[in-house]
């Protein structure tokens, strides 16, 4: 019996119960309000629907809380109870091994997979199912009780002058606040976990060695000098910005100052499509088209230089993957970030300033160059900073086209590696969380987070200051 209860599909059941209790409560509440309306003289404070929402709120909220608590704590509670009951032969297992054993129990529970297994496993699985049955029954009972109580209690409060609408409005506000809170809590959680793992890493490797060391070989030699990664990241971001800043800015100027509304209606969406292309597509474009072309040009350059007798050996590295290839393609990728934001800030420059310049006999290009762009400059700088932080954090293009050699080289045709590439290669494949190799990925992530955070904060501040000026 308990074992069968243990096999209840609790997820679906909880959702169904919430829906059933919620709608029942709503209709009951509304009915009660309508009765009140008939028997009372004069107007009610709130419409019957609000009374319905009120009752539903006080029924659903406790039920949802129970469901959430079940989702978070039930499994752990069952496992800890099960662990206590395990035979002593399990004492020699490490916590990790124990967890993976319990996980296999959970997977096997209630399926045919137990029939061929040994007796101990069968017994443990059955016991697990029993425990789950108890847990499920208790949860459902508690839930039903709370829901019934909620309906009963909140129904009784309804009256002609009861301010159900105000309560519901406050409830809505709380729901919206909680939704906003989820994003903030998630960010905080990510930061905390980054910090925690990074601190563990910095117990093995000193911060100073990590930030200033010039040799990176995390995979084999446990060398954690991240300077070549920082160098590669900034080199590629620099190349990207050299592409994106002028092209993005000029296209923004064209769009906002020169293009006819018709042309603007065409070009702007196309530019914004660039932002919608998955970065992995940019990645293989970089790897298959741009990188070979750059290599070819570099080879040709080397040969010509040697032929002309200007050098005795090749000058450029001419490697099959290169910083230049990744940087160029990344630059194309961030163009829409620059152009779209710059376009917005240029449009925000008041028309009266342009009129003033035209009325003085300034030409269009003089007006743009000397009045519009200087007035929009803070916003343009902010757009560029946001694009930089996007370029620094970009992963897929560099994973595919930048290469994996951690080195400091000014030659853009040599392959470089970046922070993001190293994080990917450290976190894929076999990983253990007590290994400095894996932990170093968190330290890299922390650096990345801090750098992009600084860029974003500065950019947003600049934008804000600029907005205040014209609004």
């Amino acid at each position: 019996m308990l074992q069968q209860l243990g096999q209840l599909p609790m997820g679906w059941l909880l959702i169904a119960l919430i829906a059933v209790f919620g709608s029942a409560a709503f209709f009951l509440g509304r009915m009660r309000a309508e009765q009140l309306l008939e028997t009372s003289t004069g107007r009610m404070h709130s419409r019957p629907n609000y009374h319905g929402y009120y009752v539903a709120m006080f029924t659903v909220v406790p039920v949802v809380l129970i469901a959430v608590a079940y989702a978070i704590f039930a499994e752990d509670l069952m496992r800890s109870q099960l662990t206590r009951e395990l035979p002593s032969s399990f004492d020699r297992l490490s916590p990790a091994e124990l967890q993976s054993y319990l996980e296999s129990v959970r997977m096997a529970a209630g399926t045919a997979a137990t029939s061929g297994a040994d007796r101990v496993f069968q017994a443990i699985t059955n016991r697990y199912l029993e425990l789950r049955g108890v847990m499920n029954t208790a949860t459902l009972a508690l839930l039903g009780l709370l829901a019934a109580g909620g309906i009963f209690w909140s129904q009784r409060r309804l009256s002609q002058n009861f301010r159900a609408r105000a309560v519901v409005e406050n409830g809505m506000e709380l729901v919206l606040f909680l939704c906003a809170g989820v994003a903030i809590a998630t960010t905080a959680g990510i930061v905390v976990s980054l910090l925690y793992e990074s601190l563990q890493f910095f117990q093995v490797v000193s911060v100073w060695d990590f930030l200033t060391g010039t040799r990176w070989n995390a995979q084999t030699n446990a060398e954690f000098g991240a300077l070549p990664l920082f160098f590669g990241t900034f080199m590629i971001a620099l190349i990207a910005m050299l592409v994106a800043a002028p092209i993005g800015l000029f296209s923004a100027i064209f769009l906002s100052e020169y293009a006819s509304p018709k042309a603007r209606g065409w070009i702007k969406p196309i530019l914004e499509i660039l932002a919608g292309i998955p970065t992995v597509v940019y990645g293989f474009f970089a790897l298959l088209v741009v990188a070979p072309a750059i290599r070819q040009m570099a080879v040709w350059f080397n040969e010509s230089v040697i032929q002309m007798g200007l050098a005795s050996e090749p000058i450029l590295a001419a490697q099959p993957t290169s910083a230049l290839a990744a940087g160029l393609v990344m630059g194309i990728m961030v163009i829409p970030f620059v152009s779209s934001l710059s376009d917005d800030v240029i449009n925000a420059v008041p028309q009266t300033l342009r009129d003033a310049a035209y009325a003085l006999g300034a030409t269009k290009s003089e007006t743009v160059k000397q009045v519009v762009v200087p007035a929009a400059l803070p916003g343009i700088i902010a757009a560029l900073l946001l694009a930089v932080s996007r370029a620094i954090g970009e992963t897929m293009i560099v994973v595919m086209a930048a290469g994996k050699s951690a080195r400091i080289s000014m030659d853009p045709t040599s392959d470089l590696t970046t922070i993001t590439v190293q994080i990917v290669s450290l976190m894929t494949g076999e990983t253990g969380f007590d290994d400095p190799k894996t932990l170093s990925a968190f330290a890299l992530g922390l650096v990345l987070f801090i750098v992009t955070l600084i860029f974003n904060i500065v950019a947003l501040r600049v934008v804000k200051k600029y907005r205040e000026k014209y609004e």
Partner: protein
Amino acid sequence: MDTTLGMSTAVDDNLTLPPATDTAAAPRIDCRNIKVFYGETEAIHDVSMAFPDRAVTALIGPSGCGKSTFLRCLNRMNDTIENCRVEGEILMDGENINDADVDPVLLRSRVGMVFQKPNPFPKSIYDNIAYGPRIHGLANGREDLDAIVEKSLRRAGLWDEVKDRLAAPGTGLSGGQQQRLCIARAIAVQPEVILMDEPCSALDPIATARIEELIDELRNRYCIVIVTHSMQQAARVSQRTAFFHLGNLVELGDTSQIFTNPREKRTEDYITGRFG
């Protein structure tokens, strides 16, 4: 009021000015059969009028009557508006400024404009004034430019207030000062005509009085056309007044005559406040 009326008698109905001025015989600007279209809509219907030199002409009329649109014809600012089209002849020195071979950039250096809202560039006071002379190459070197800036600010009656802070941003001045800065900026290009589109509508009465005084001083050097919503202002500063209604020029005459003895019923109704 008395002085205004006294001055306006100097201008007779044939738009000639006293013989003391050389160019008195011909009007500074002569508009013939001007029509303005926004897309298919005709906003100005066949307006002909002339603007005398060294005098202030006021354009009055209810909102939307086309007076600002008409004003913007005179320096071809309507070119900057999409789907706006101007027909007719506007003669300056015998040349039609609407001709295809007239460069609007050069035209605008001869016809300055001051706008409704003060619109100084977000640059220093000095650079605001120096902007026009720089783009038109009017100054030979720094000293010359300094002289132009000082002269323009003096003429706009702003020099004493800002001479110690020429490097401060122009946007930091008060509204009235900003508007005088904009007038100085227009003067710095050495225009022949100054157009003013409700230059005092964003200003308080004291700043307005200051600008009106200034307009009266500038009248001795320039042909000034001012659009205004305030009939008192038109009466105070102008010698000629044109009343616009629904895109038509209803009546044009000496300011004293328009305000004391209008020929048209609609003019009378408007200036006595019966509509508009």
